[in-house]
């Protein structure tokens, strides 16, 4: 670190890396060990839902968990607010 470096400081970015990693690692861990067909199932489900309701892909959450020793596939769809006429 010489005199010059005092004038061109790189902004501290380690925190940014840490935050991003925390999120992505948590997300990747949540689908770890899930069956290989899950991404495809997810896509096809999305297509079917999309046929009937115009939802944002991000509004469809598919997760695999365990409950009382059973694998549970959880599908959660937040529907857009319905427009009511009259």
């Amino acid at each position, binding site marked *: 670190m010489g005199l010059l470096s005092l004038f061109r400081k790189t902004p501290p970015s380690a925190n940014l890396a840490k935050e991003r990693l925390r999120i992505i690692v948590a997300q990747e861990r949540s689908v770890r*060990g899930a069956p290989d067909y899950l991404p495809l199932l997810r896509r096809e489900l999305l297509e079917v839902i999309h046929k009937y309701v115009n939802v944002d892909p991000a509004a469809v959450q598919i997760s695999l968990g365990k409950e009382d020793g059973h694998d549970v596939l959880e599908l959660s769809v937040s529907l857009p607010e319905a427009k009511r006429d009259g």
Partner: protein
Amino acid sequence: MAEIIVVTSGKGGVGKTTTSASIACGLARRGKRVAVVDFDIGLRNLDLIMGCERRVVYDFVNVIQGDCTLKQALIKDKRFDTLFVLAASQTRDKDALSSEGVHRVLEELANDGFDYIICDSPAGIEKGAHLAMYFADRAVVVVNPEISSVRDSDRILGLLASKTARAEQGKERVKEHLLLTRYNPRRVASGEMLSVEDVKEILGLDVIGVVPESPDVLSASNAGTPVILNDASDASRAYEDTVARLLGEEVPLRFTMEAKKGFFARMFGG
């Protein structure tokens, strides 16, 4: 009983081979019988780092395919009588390694009285990496304090927990350790680089060593002398500490703080 230690990382270029070579030398220097095996089929490099590239006659695949005996393929290190290298082959056929073949070679090494078998994994999560970790008792996951390396390490930790013989047979799980390499305390202090604590927290695993970024690592590979043997280097001391911890000794972490510099060094760089 031989202990099988895989050195792995997912990401390439983080220091797996450097680490394998240094850990192997460190263990041998303490009198252990050590075999270090290159699993990077097609891209042999451990021989260069160990400085025995001109003495490779037979390789790992030759042994598996029965072209030679294991004894013929093991290259005895010139520095330590108890250290042997098994080189990877340069064949382009990645399927040359078979699970049964690897198992057979590792068993034969164990029966030959080796205390430690160090498996130097290739990068990635393909067959070579899979087989390098499959029979392991312990894993040293080499990680740089850098975002893609940390993510890949987490991926590898997932595989260690599910795609190993221990996991599949429901045995005690593979002992996992993190080894941080290319650590730059100055950049950590200024908030530009993830700290040891950050990486530990994200991956939820303890650290078995922190190797500071050092120009000595390049000169070591240039010379074919594993960096742990350069006693004047901080990287050597960090690897020596790591070996001690692998053997169960309790050694405090060093080289994680910025070295104090004198007034002139601070003003004029150095």
